[in-house]
């Protein structure tokens, strides 16, 4: 019964299993739906869907199966998904912002859905679905052979549109990057940390064995459960990182609250690591990298956070450091290598989006450190790498990107 719903759910990526389906059948056999569509809707949702993120997919599957309404094209999902997480372009004025807040999202959605439906009919085979007349505060979207494009008001050239497309795609998997989600991602590291083979005395087992052995002490050992995870977090505090500071501070607060790190050492550097890192953001309290390498064990997990964008000379030349009066007699890239050689496991998290990684210094650095995007997915991949599993870091694009290397992270 209702097998169509089962397959419609699976087609939309809701992982319903036959077990759950049989449970639903059992519930129906018990008459729990009371022959009522609304009840059936609730019943099937409670049994088949296990995350609120999939409620929307469920609604669509339901519509398709029970109302005979053909679900609109993928673009509608994409637009709705995107609307759930509106990305405010930075150039919005105060007045426009006020308009945005005053507008009810549901109304907007309805309007958009309506317009989508209308325009699909009228512009059969046309190349634009949603108008760009400036009436929609969320700007314009279009369907082109190249893919879905949705950008902010003002349009912009090709590069901006491509960037907007990237931003939007990533949004689907990342949703809101809040501290808790980062925390959840960081916890992926714990699994490994608990696999340590050290032994501790099993007190209960010892007592049990001792009691059975007429009071003669018999020691029983077992693997320890404690986490021995130590993490060194090095964060770029250079000027080009300013747009990402909010994001990095979220990562930092998630990391410092992560209770499963036995020790978290957080330091800053400016554009590139030279002979010192700094214990404070204002870069007063210097800590020689040589000391750092001597004090921290090889097993410490190293996480570098930075955009890895700098003048090539800052990375590869002696005396190349950007700071006035800072004279490094070993090139930045050698210091980075020094760290990479010392620590068994290291990753670089880059807040810039992958398409922008074509900057030459990014390429050089990603040769030394496996580089991941600073997104939930990226952090998860990085944690997998840190815990010793085989992970392929994303491949940076070759060649320069049109429209420059920096993109404002308002997309976060």
């Amino acid at each position: 019964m209702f097998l169509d719903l089962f397959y419609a759910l699976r087609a939309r990526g809701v992982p319903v299993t036959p077990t759950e389906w049989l449970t639903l059948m059992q519930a129906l056999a018990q008459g729990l739906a009371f022959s009522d569509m609304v009840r059936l809707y609730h019943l099937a949702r409670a049994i088949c869907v296990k995350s609120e993120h999939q409620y929307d997919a469920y609604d669509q599957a339901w519509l398709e199966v029970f109302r005979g309404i053909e679900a609109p094209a993928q673009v509608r999902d994409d637009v709705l998904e995107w609307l759930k997480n509106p990305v405010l372009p930075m150039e919005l004025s105060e007045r426009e912002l006020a308009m945005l807040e005053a507008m009810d999202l549901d109304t907007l959605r309805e309007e958009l859905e309506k317009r989508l439906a209308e325009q699909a009919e009228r512009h059969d085979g046309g190349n634009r679905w949603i108008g760009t007349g400036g009436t929609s505060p969320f700007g314009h979207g279009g369907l082109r052979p190249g893919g879905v494009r949705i950008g902010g008001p003002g349009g912009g050239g090709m590069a901006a549109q491509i960037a907007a497309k990237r931003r939007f795609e990533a949004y689907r998997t990342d949703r809101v990057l809040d501290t808790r989600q980062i925390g959840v991602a960081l916890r992926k590291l714990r699994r490994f940390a608990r696999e340590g083979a050290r032994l501790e005395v099993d007190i209960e087992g010892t007592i049990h064995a001792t009691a059975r052995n007429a009071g003669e002490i018999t020691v029983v050992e077992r693997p320890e459960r404690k986490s021995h995870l130590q993490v060194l977090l090095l964060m770029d505090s250079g000027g080009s990182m300013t747009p990402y500071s909010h994001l990095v501070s979220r990562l930092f607060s998630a990391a410092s609250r992560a209770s499963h790190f036995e020790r978290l050492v957080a330091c800053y550097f400016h554009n590139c690591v030279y002979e010192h890192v700094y214990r404070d953001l204002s870069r007063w309290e210097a800590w020689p990298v040589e000391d750092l390498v001597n004090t921290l064990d090889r097993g410490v997990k190293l996480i570098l956070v930075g955009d890895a964008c700098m003048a090539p000379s800052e990375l590869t030349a002696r005396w190349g450091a950007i700071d006035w009066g800072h004279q490094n007699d070993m090139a930045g890239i050698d210091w980075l290598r020094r760290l990479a050689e010392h620590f068994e496991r290291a990753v670089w998290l880059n807040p810039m989006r992958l398409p922008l990684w074509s900057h030459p210094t990014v390429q050089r650095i990603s040769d030394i450190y496996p580089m991941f995007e600073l997104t939930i997915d990226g952090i998860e991949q990085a944690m997998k790498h840190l815990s010793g599993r085989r992970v392929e870091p994303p491949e940076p694009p070759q060649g320069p990107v049109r429209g420059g290397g920096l993109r404002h992270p308002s997309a976060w």
Partner: protein
Amino acid sequence: MSDPFHLFTGTPDYIASPALCDGVNVAVALGRPLLVKGEPGTGKTLLAHAVARGLGMPLIRWHIKSTTKAVDGLYVYDAISRLHDSRFGDRDVRDIGQYISIGPLGQALTMDERVVLLIDEVDKADLEFPNDLLRELDEMAFHIPETGQTHTARQRPVVIITSNDEKELPAAFLRRCIFHFIAFPEVELMDRIVKVHHPDLPASLARQCIARFYQLRQVASLRKPPSTSELIDWIGALVAGGVPEATLRAELPFLGTLVKHEEDLGRVQRAAARWKN
């Protein structure tokens, strides 16, 4: 078909949406655990209390901490006092049963009557914790190796599990659960909830409070948007402080009961300045 007299429909002081009631009733009828998620302050934990009251069953609570292990919920074996007794001979150490104390889950499985078991904040515990519970929740039985006894529930308890989504729960665990996400209440539902908690509040003031509250939740990118429980507290503070309706229209008194982050406070104040204009 289950007895229609034993259906959960909410209680006088807990207003549940029809979807939530259906979720509870399915879980009760099928004997499956009900997993409840939702924003903090939407009444996940209170649901268990309400279900216990609504169905007239005793409630057993098991609050999960980061150090909680699955076996703690079943029983705790006090090996230390047994060792102690073995040396000083106070009790007969061969009787292991006297050193076993039954935990909350164990209690729920050994009671004669049907009970409601609340497993609160299951995501606080170790990642493997839910997996360790699978067998017990499936079979509603557990075994104590120390004594060699197996306890099987005479009546499958109604298990309500809450999660704040701090950790993803394993798929095998989810498969066995009935899931309900407590969505944030719509204005009408909120109106009823407020009435239940502040029955003497004039309707116009209540409407004003709720309108201000939803306006506040609309403020973009709050780190922690205020929730139902905070609204209830806020109205309590307004009533205690005797704030008249006119003041409420012009400003937001006792903002500290609603907004808990310093950054949010700044955002709200900026937004409030815009509303005035």
